[in-house]
């Protein structure tokens, strides 16, 4: 029988099927961070059980960590306590821990692939919805709740009903200035934030085949924002080249054997999906969001839609625009902004910093803009310096911060004040996401760069 990439990986990890219930699903790799793991460890303690396979779980601290002066003690007592809990729990249960200050520390979804922990055909979970990032390697990766974190530590399994299958085909050529983030925001604007619910997506077509691994990670990362549990892309030579030689990737004979297996991981020609979406690459413009969910995105040259043009309730829509301080039919270009955030598990990789730097090179940061440039890991940070990007950024008036989740979710010190507008390369523009009352405009690194140097929303295509 013909099967999809998703079927091949899923079915090979089902320990048993429960009648009128979920599958008992085996997890190869488990990431944990400080926020969603402490109660899971408490659960283990209360039940008196140990971690079944500590070598399959990897801990890193990222959500709470400050992005300046990381050598000093963490100021916020609650954050410090949570970071300490992760360190203590990891030590107690024999789990590898890349805490604050460790050279391998960084955002969990950046350091996993960087170290070859993420592999094609693997099943990967983490108590974090953007675990979908790892699908870029042909893994099944998705976010779980804390009860499930406990299950994975106790038994290396969770209980999951198999999701339905969706394929998103994007073919054709992307225009200049349109990148992976724009492709993803365009897909979400078409599907809405609930259009993918109940599905696991496969991204296919020449746009993804031609995309870098970093770009694929950005796209898969945002799968959850259309409601899908995750999204994946068939592994290819680019995937293998990215992984070869990385710390946890197989070596020698094991590597050859692994690659031979990975080459079988693709959807059969006549396999059937529950639903398919076809998109023409040339329809996609540089995207910007104007509302309070990631589905509320438009091309930068477009006006904000009227309530009667959008699906769903007009009341919710108007509430959202009121929060943003926008009106129906507003023009986006030229709107003043206050903050720019480059970073997060969505856009905190080297390619994102290259794209941002290309725009700001030879220009200056606008005086009205506060910019936070936050690499996703120390490895990315080192690359920024090594490639000479830091010199260009410094010359343009920008400062590079230290790795972490930073302004993506207002859990650490990097918060956008109430009423202020932030052009953000992160993943969510929910009310208060970047701080109480903050107003987030999601965009690509080059859109963020264009706003950073002009101080207003600007079509980045005019700055090449």
């Amino acid at each position, binding site marked *: 029988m013909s099967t999809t990439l998703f079927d091949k990986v899923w079915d090979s990890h089902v320990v048993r099927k429960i009648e*009128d*219930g979920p599958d008992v699903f085996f997890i*190869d790799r488990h990431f944990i961070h400080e926020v*969603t793991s402490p109660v899971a460890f408490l659960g283990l303690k209360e039940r008196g059980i140990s971690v*079944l396979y500590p070598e399959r779980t990897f801990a890193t601290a990222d959500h709470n960590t400050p992005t300046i002066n990381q050598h000093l003690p963490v100021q916020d007592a609650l954050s410090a306590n949570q970071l300490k809990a992760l360190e203590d729990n990891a030590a107690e249960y024999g789990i590898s821990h890349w805490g604050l200050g460790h050279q391998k520390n960084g955002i969990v979804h950046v350091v996993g692939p960087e170290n070859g922990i993420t592999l094609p055909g693997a099943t990967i979970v983490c*108590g974090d919805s953007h675990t979908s990032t790892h699908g870029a390697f042909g893994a099944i990766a998705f976010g779980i709740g804390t*009860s499930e974190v406990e299950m994975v530590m106790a038994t290396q399994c969770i209980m999951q009903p198999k999701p339905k299958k969706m394929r998103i085909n994007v073919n054709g050529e992307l225009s200049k200035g349109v990148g992976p983030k724009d492709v993803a925001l365009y897909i979400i604007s078409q599907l809405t934030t609930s259009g993918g619910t109940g599905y696991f997506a496969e991204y296919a077509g020449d746009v993804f085949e031609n995309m870098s691994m970093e770009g694929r990670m950005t796209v898969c990362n945002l799968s959850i924002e259309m409601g899908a549990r995750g999204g994946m892309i068939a592994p290819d030579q680019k995937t293998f080249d990215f992984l070869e030689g990385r710390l946890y990737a197989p070596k020698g004979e094991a590597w050859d054997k692994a690659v031979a297996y990975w080459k079988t991981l693709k959807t059969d020609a006549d396999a059937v999906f529950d639903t398919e979406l076809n998109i023409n690459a040339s329809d996609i413009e540089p995207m910007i969001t104007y509302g309070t969910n990631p589905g509320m995105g438009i091309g930068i040259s477009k006006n904000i839609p009227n309530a009667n043009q959008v699906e769903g309730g007009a009341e919710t829509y108007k509430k959202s625009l009121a929060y943003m301080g926008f009106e129906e039919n507003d023009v986006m270009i030229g709107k003043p902004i206050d903050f720019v955030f480059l970073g997060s598990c969505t856009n905190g990789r080297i390619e994102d910093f290259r794209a941002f730097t290309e725009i700001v090179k030879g220009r200056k940061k606008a005086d009205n803009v506060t910019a936070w440039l936050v690499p996703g890991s120390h490895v990315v940070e080192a690359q920024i310096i090594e490639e000479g990007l830091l010199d260009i950024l410094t010359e343009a008036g920008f400062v590079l911060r230290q790795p972490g989740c930073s302004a993506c979710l207002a859990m650490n010190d990097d918060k956008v004040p109430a009423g202020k507008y932030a052009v953000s390369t992160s993943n969510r523009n*929910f009310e208060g996401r970047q701080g109480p009352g903050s107003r987030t405009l999601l965009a690509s690194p080059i859109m963020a760069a264009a706003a950073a140097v002009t101080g207003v929303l600007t079509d980045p295509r005019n700055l090449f």
Partner: protein
Amino acid sequence: MAYDKFNILTSSAVPLPIENVDTDQIIPARFLKATERVGFGDNLFRDWRYNGDDTPKADFVLNDSTHSGKILVGGKNFGSGSSREHAAWAVYDYGFRAVVSSFFADIFKGNCLNIGVLPVQVTPEFAETIFNAIGADPKTELEINLPEQTITLKATGQKESFEISGYKKDNMINGFDDIDYLQNIKEEIVGFANKLPY
């Protein structure tokens, strides 16, 4: 973690007819710093419920004494966003035992089922009927019957069936959780793991 068994719940309901209620509204990230599962109910819908100076916002439904009960009725796509189980904990700790909506986000729904909050998915029409009934009489009662998988408006007898897997239904009625099940098949899991490539 142990939770209250769920059988038949009869209660008035709190209406929140807003679409796409995301987990950052249910519990903002800055309240996720606890290392124990305590006090999350106090911060349920924190920024909709309180002003910046911690005074209650009078127009938010949780601050309106005409509405109370153990059932929360939300708009379409309830619980979208993050995987934080803290959102489900906040709902439970506040005192809700069931959430009714015409559509739930996946992870939130799964988290609810794992901690003893019953997500009841109804048709958009029935959700509208419930909102109207609460609008007409805030004390109107809903009966959620888990063994029968039905939700009924007590005043009129209008009723709908809802879906839940037999496995999860059994768990909720008995207060079991998945770890109990998985612990019992550990040998089978280890045998399976030994055959995997990595």
